[in-house]
Every structure is written in C-alpha cells, then in structure tokens.
C-alpha cells in the first residue's frame, strides 16, 4: 500500500486499482474527507474501516463517481468524475443495503442485469439463488431484508468485474449467511485479477479475509497497511499493574484495563524491548482498530 517498501517492486508499476491523493469533501463546515490519500493495488481485498460518520461512505461514493470532491482520484486508471460510464464496465458495487426496488421481481432482476451487463453470468446468479429460499416469481417487496441482500449479492457476484466495492454488504444478514457469503466471496469470486474494497462494522468476522486495512476517522486515514505487516509494526503487551509504569516508558499509543491488568499497544517496538515486561502478541485488527480510534478521539 502507500509507499510501503515491497519485495516485488514491479507490483507498484502495475496500474493501481484505486489511487487517491488528497481526497477532500466538505458538507458545509464539516469535512467528511480531509486530504485522504491511499492506494489499492490490484488483487487485494481491502477493508475500509472506521466508526459511523468517519467518511467511509463518502470515500466510496467518490470512488464510484457518485459524489463530487476535490483532490486526485484514479479508479482502474479512470477519473470517476468524467469517465464514470466507462468505469462502470469494470466496477461493481453495493452502495447501500436494500436499494433494490420493491416492485422488481427476482426473474426481472436477472433479466435486467443480463440485458445491460455484458459480463453478467446468469447461470452463476441462479446458482447463488438456489442456495437461498428466494423464488423467481417473488417481488422484492415480499422478501425479508436478509433475502433482499442475498438477491443483491447474487446479482453482483455473478458479474465479472475488476473491482468490487461493498459498503456494509452483510448488514441485516444472520451469522450463517454472513459466513456463507464471505466463503463465496473468497473461494468462488476472488482471484488475483480482482480487487475488493469492503467496509464493515463487524471487523472481527472478516479479519482473516483482508489482505490490507485502511482505518479512517474524522476524514483522515489513521492507518494504511497490508495485514501481513501489522505483526511487525504493532505489538500488544499485557502487563501487571506493577510493570505498567516501566512499560509506559516505552510510549504505548493506547492502553486499557483488563481484569486488573493493563493492555498496551505499541508501534515499532521489538520483542526484545517488550518481551520481558509481560505477555506479548500481535493485536487483532479489531483491537488495533479500537486502539487507533480511541487515540484519535482522545
């Protein structure tokens, strides 16, 4: 990701799937995006993670050419402002849940997408739907919220797109289907030719899915890193109350109490520095997210 040293420098020469420089968008006095920069390389699954109102959706809408902004932005080498029509041949997205119109029949939805999208594989969509309780003759208005999402996902996953953008795709789905969806996404859909950008609240559930994470808060990028580098960059140390002050001398960026002990988060420390003080491990993305977000708000 962003100017990280890489083993294979040729990767950087490939056209980035998304390249954002100084993305800014203000609603009145409030800045939803304040100079956001990040790069998404092709063949990655990137989690865009942030609290409500952090600017995630605004960033996604800018990427999809659905909102105006200032700054530089190239998506699949195209400008989403002026080349949106061409861009939509390569990009597919779910911008929001429950946006399928109530009057649409399931069979009509299939027919419509087949009619307008040259890269839609109807039989694949039918295959996805067969695993659900959705009937071809049903109207969207008759389906439950979860079923509408299932239908939308079945349509989108059957499109052979280069970049897939998903904003909270599993909102309102039960755990079983969420698992099933992420399995499908990873096993059947994802390959090295595709890029997936995903936002979600349920970070714990998709930790293993991401290759990269971008934390965003108050319109700023708080963290932008490949997941495999998180281990060498961040350390979570759990120490007893007595050891806490010694550990604090090494400047954790966040700490919180756990059953009388203190969990501290460090950036750029080594196991040699921290190991002797307490229990050391690599923080989970969810813990790291909380730590990073708390620090920004403090």
């Amino acid at each position, binding site marked *: 990701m962003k100017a990280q040293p890489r083993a294979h420098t040729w990767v950087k020469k490939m056209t980035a799937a998304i390249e954002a420089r100084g993305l800014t968008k203000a609603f009145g006095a409030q800045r939803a995006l304040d100079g956001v920069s990040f790069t998404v390389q092709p063949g990655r699954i990137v989690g865009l993670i942030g609290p409500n109102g952090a600017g995630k959706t605004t960033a996604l809408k800018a990427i999809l050419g659905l909102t105006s902004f200032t700054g530089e932005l190239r998506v699949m080498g195209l400008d989403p402002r002026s080349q949106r029509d061409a861009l*939509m041949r390569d990009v597919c997205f779910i911008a929001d849940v429950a*946006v399928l119109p109530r*009057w649409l029949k399931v069979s009509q939805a299939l027919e419509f997408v087949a*009619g307008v999208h040259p890269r839609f594989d109807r039989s694949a969509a039918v295959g996805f739907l067969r695993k659900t309780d959705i009937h071809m003759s049903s109207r969207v208005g008759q389906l439950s919220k979860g079923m509408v999402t299932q239908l939308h996902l079945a349509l989108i996953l059957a499109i052979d797109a280069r970049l897939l953008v998903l904003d909270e795709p599993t909102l309102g789905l039960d755990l079983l289907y969420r698992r099933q969806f992420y399995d499908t996404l990873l096993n059947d859909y994802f*390959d090295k030719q595709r890029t997936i950008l995903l936002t979600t609240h349920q970070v714990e559930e998709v930790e293993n899915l991401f290759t990269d994470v971008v934390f965003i808060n108050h319109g700023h990028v708080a963290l932008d890193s490949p997941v495999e580098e998180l281990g060498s960059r961040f350390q979570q140390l759990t120490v007893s109350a007595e050891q806490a002050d010694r550990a604090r001398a090494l400047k954790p960026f966040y700490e919180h109490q756990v059953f009388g002990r203190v969990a501290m988060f460090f950036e750029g420390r080594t196991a040699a520095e921290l190991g002797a003080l307490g229990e050391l491990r690599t923080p989970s993305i969810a813990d790291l997210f909380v730590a990073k977000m708390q620090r920004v708000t403090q």
Partner: protein
Amino acid sequence: MSTNMSTPASTAGLTVPASSVAAGGLQQTLVTLVRREFWEHRALWIAPLATAVLLLVCALFAHGGHFQIEGNEVGDQPFSARQALALSTIAQAVVFMALNLVAVVMVSFYLVDCLYAERRDRSIYFWKSLPVSDGLTVASKLLVAMLVVPLGVWALAAVTHVALSVVFAAHSALGQLPAHLVAWNTLIWLRVEFLLLLGLILGALWNAPISGYFLLVSVLARRNAVMWAIGIPPLGLLLERLVFGTHYLYTFIGYRLNGIWDILANHGDLNFITGQAADGNSHFNVPPLDVLLGELHFRAAFLAPDLWLGVIAAAVMVYGAARIRRYRDDT
C-alpha cells in the same frame, strides 16, 4: 448473450474489449431499459388495455341501445352506405382518442414519477451500479413516453376498432342492429389509421416540451413531484398577474397546448366547416373521416417553426435532466 458466457473465474484473465461490449449491446440495453419501465409502471399498458376491453365489453352488451343523431333514431333514418362508413370512421377516431386520452394521463404521471421514484426508494444506487449511462437511462424513459406508448396505443386502438366492427357486424347479423348501419372499407380504414398516426406523431412532437418539463421536475423534486409539476404553471400565472398585472404566460401556455391544432385546422378555415356554415342547416351529412382528416394542413403543421423550437427546448430540458441525474449528490 448470457447463456454462452463462461463463469466469471474462467473469463477473469481476459479483458472484454470495450468495442465488442458496445456493438449490438446498445440495442439490447435499450430494449431492456424500455421493458424495465413497463415492469415498474404497469399502469402504462394496463390502463389503455383495460379501457379497450371495457369499450369492447360495452359494445358486446350494447344491443337494445339506441343510437341517436340530432334527436332522430339512427336506425329510422334512410342511411346511405357512405354515411354508415362515416359513422364507422368516427367510431375509429373516437376509440383512438379515448385510448389516447387515457395514455396521455398515464404517461404524464409516469414522466413526473420516473426519475423521482428511483431516488425516493434509493434504487438509483442499484441502477447506477450497472454500466448504463444517465443519458441512456433518461433517453429510455423519453422513448417510452414519446414513442413506445403512443405507437402501442395507436396499434391497440386499431385492433379495438376492428374488434368493435366485428361485434357490430355480429349484432347486425343477429338482427340487433339495422344492417345498413354497418359498413366497412379497408382502404378508407387504412387511410384514417395513417392520418391518426400522423396526428399522433405531431402531438408527440408538439408536446415534447411538456414531456421535457415533467422529466426536469421529476429529477429535481425532493418530494411531491406531482404537486410541483401541476403547481408550477398556476403559480407562475398567479405571480405574473400579481407582480406585473399581465397574462403573457397564460397566453403562452394556452398556445403551447393548442397552437399546433390551430395550424393543423388552418385556423378554422376548412372546406367542410365553412361549407357547412354556408349551408346553414347542419344535419348528419358528414363524409367518411378520411376526407375530413385529409383536409387538415399536416404539411404546414409539420413545417411550423414553433413545433421545432419546442422540440429543441425539449431536447435542452432532457439533456439537463440527464446531467442532473449524473451529477446530483444526495449524500
């Protein structure tokens, strides 16, 4: 198209050239977009169809009813074949006008609703996730309103009139209708159909600015699109009246509604009308409708500069609607 496509995984390595996507795809896309409109706005085809069926049902059970013209029972009059034919062509035009009136009402509501509803139910995010440009989307809606529905109604009216003629012939054969009232002439029927079609095209072109205005309201309205569409003209009239004390807008709207029909009828100076007026006693002596319609000044109407100025104004409004749909930001 979709049937011969392989799975996403196997095509992943291949890039489909943009040109091959566009070729042949545009027509298919447009057809799909137009079909979509009839899925959503079912009233567009159900209402005219129901009206046609209603007319036919009425005709089926119309036996025992009495046709009266100028106070006399039609059946009692010595009726020439020519007059019977005139009656048939009048029925032909009346059926067309009835269905057309229903369609115009439906199409008006449709135009006001089509770009507003997709924002109201947020389905615009779904439509916009597919490779269909805003221009093509708006064009498909205009195509439905100005071409598909009018032509469909014209064809439906033709079929309905044929069916009505068959019903009347059957009534006559069963003795429920005087035989000399029933007449048919295919050539004249075709001529009337052709003239009605010309009138239909003329009307669609003349009313194009109204269609454009409806689309513009539809794309702009935050709520109550129908109220805005209906409310703006009277509001404008009232404002002009109060502020300037004039009524230019009233004259203008009146002209934009009726002007072309005035030109078509040569400002009332048509032979059959003036002829009748000179004659003084108007009794039922109308020739078959194709003769009357044939007197209309279609050439002058189609060449009227105001017709084409209106079309240009409509094009500007439709282009504006497409641009607003593209760049509108409701976040």
